[in-house]
């Protein structure tokens, strides 16, 4: 393994995840004293560590803080809202350990969920969430130290983790055994093939990256590259599909329809409302094009290309159809962001190198379907055909900017009020003057009449 200090055994973390893209990939953790075993969803798109603190119809177990002698309540209520679903819990601290992770016990912030909506889903086998993004996203404030920050701080491991998700080509919902690996503190060479290509993290909140270009069947989608990054492009293990901004999604579907050799495709398939099923003797994957995503390289004048074969985005789904194989479209539209979710991540070993502020991609050792490798990485490519900056900054993203904006708006309002008052005052004087009748004014008034 590639830990230079040799203090961590990365090999013990291989195959420490279970699950699938539809219901998420989860890690087993032991929480509290005596330890309570929980399965925790790995989410690189949020920053809170939370576990069910009460029973819920969709889960079978929960963390009972009253049974833990090491639990320290912080008496703070916290609510986290996701793209879909939310939960409310109480903040506290407790010790955790990882049966297949970094050795030792660590004191970390935990939210005990007592109320949730659309967060726990039917048939999931996890009871909590491990947010691995930056503290900027932590709720109720960035002062709540995220799980991985605490781990790096207390165990002095390198500030890097990597993830392999092994559901490519597996029917969903899968059997969820030995479905992937979360390597905390480094990179495990047995989990990838070829070179690792790195793209900069453009801002440390989500794992935000810069997408430069899309190709479908080798043809450039030819949209302005700022559209690909509106309002952000992120790498998120807690999102099942590849989510594309509306404009990109429509262009992508048009390009796939034109390139695919399949006749009369049902429009509802693209919207995710229907599955497409073919006779078991037919293999639809041969009839769809490859999709490529170009990311900016750490050398900003270069880029590299992630290629997804149809096996990654035309996803097999288990149904009760005896003679048919059914598939769903692994790409959906998004009003708010481009999300490189499990659809893409299942093709690659993804390295979240926080120390060097970059995300790495390499072809995953488990991205194989029927002996075919379903992902590719190629580069370097030039960037002369795209803008030098494809990210349109949103100045109101930072809380401080909101405060400044409100202050300026209040100031403008006060100035406007003063101006209105000043405008009204002379008018009143003028009216008073008009009402004062003397010979001269009366004469003038009559003349005007």
């Amino acid at each position, binding site marked *: 393994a590639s830990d230079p200090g040799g203090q961590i055994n990365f090999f013990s973390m291989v195959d420490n995840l279970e699950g699938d*893209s*539809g*219901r*998420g990939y989860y890690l087993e953790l032991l929480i509290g004293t005596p330890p309570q075993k929980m399965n925790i*969803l790995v*989410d690189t*798109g*949020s920053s809170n560590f939370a576990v069910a603190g009460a029973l819920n119809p969709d889960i079978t177990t929960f963390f009972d803080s009253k049974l833990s002698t090491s639990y320290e309540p912080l008496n703070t209520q916290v609510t986290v809202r*996701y*793209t*879909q*679903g939310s939960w409310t819990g109480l903040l506290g601290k407790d010790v955790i350990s990882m049966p297949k992770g970094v050795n030792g016990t660590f004191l970390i912030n935990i939210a005990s969920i007592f109320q949730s909506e659309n967060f726990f*889903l*039917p*048939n999931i086998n996890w009871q909590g*969430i491990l947010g691995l993004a930056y503290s900027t996203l932590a709720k109720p404030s960035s002062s709540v130290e995220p799980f991985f920050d605490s781990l790096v701080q207390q165990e002095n491991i390198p500030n890097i983790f990597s993830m392999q998700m092994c559901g490519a080509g597996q029917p*969903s919902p899968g059997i969820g055994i030995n479905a992937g690996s979360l390597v905390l503190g480094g990179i495990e060479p047995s989990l990838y093939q070829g070179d690792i290509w790195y793209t900069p993290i453009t801002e440390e909140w989500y794992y935000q990256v810069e997408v430069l270009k899309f190709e479908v069947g080798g043809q450039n989608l030819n949209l302005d590259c700022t559209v690909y990054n509106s309002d952000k492009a992120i790498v*998120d293990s*807690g*999102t*099942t*599909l590849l989510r594309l901004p509306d404009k990109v999604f429509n262009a992508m579907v048009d390009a796939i329809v034109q390139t695919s*050799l*399949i*006749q*009369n*495709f*049902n429009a*509802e*398939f693209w919207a*995710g*409302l*229907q*599955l*497409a*099923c*073919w*006779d078991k003797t*037919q293999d*639809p994957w*041969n*009839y769809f094009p490859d999709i490529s995503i170009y990311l900016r390289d750490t050398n900003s004048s270069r880029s590299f290309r992630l290629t997804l074969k149809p096996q990654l985005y035309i996803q097999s*789904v288990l*149904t*009760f*159809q005896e003679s*048919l194989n*059914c598939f*769903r479209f692994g790409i*959906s539209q998004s009003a708010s962001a481009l999300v490189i979710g*499990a659809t893409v991540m299942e093709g690659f070993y993804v390295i979240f190198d926080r120390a060097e502020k970059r995300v790495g991609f390499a072809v995953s050792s488990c991205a194989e379907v029927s002996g075919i490798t379903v992902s590719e990485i190629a580069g370097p490519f030039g960037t002369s055909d795209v803008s030098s900056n494809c990210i349109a900054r949103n100045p109101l993203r930072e809380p401080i900017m909101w405060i400044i904006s409100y202050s300026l708006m209040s100031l403008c309002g006060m100035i406007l009020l003063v101006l209105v008052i000043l405008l009204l005052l002379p008018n009143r004087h003028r009216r008073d003057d008009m009402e004062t009748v003397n010979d001269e004014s009366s004469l003038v008034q009559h003349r005007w009449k």
Partner: protein
Amino acid sequence: AACASANFIFPLKVSPAEMKGAVPVAPVTPKGAPGLLL
């Protein structure tokens, strides 16, 4: 031997025939179909 000679008769890559339209089927769990959105 027949297969080998057939390979020589068709040295070019032949593009696949158009595939028949798919049978649309509603997902078993429509609500859960898109998966996670965290």
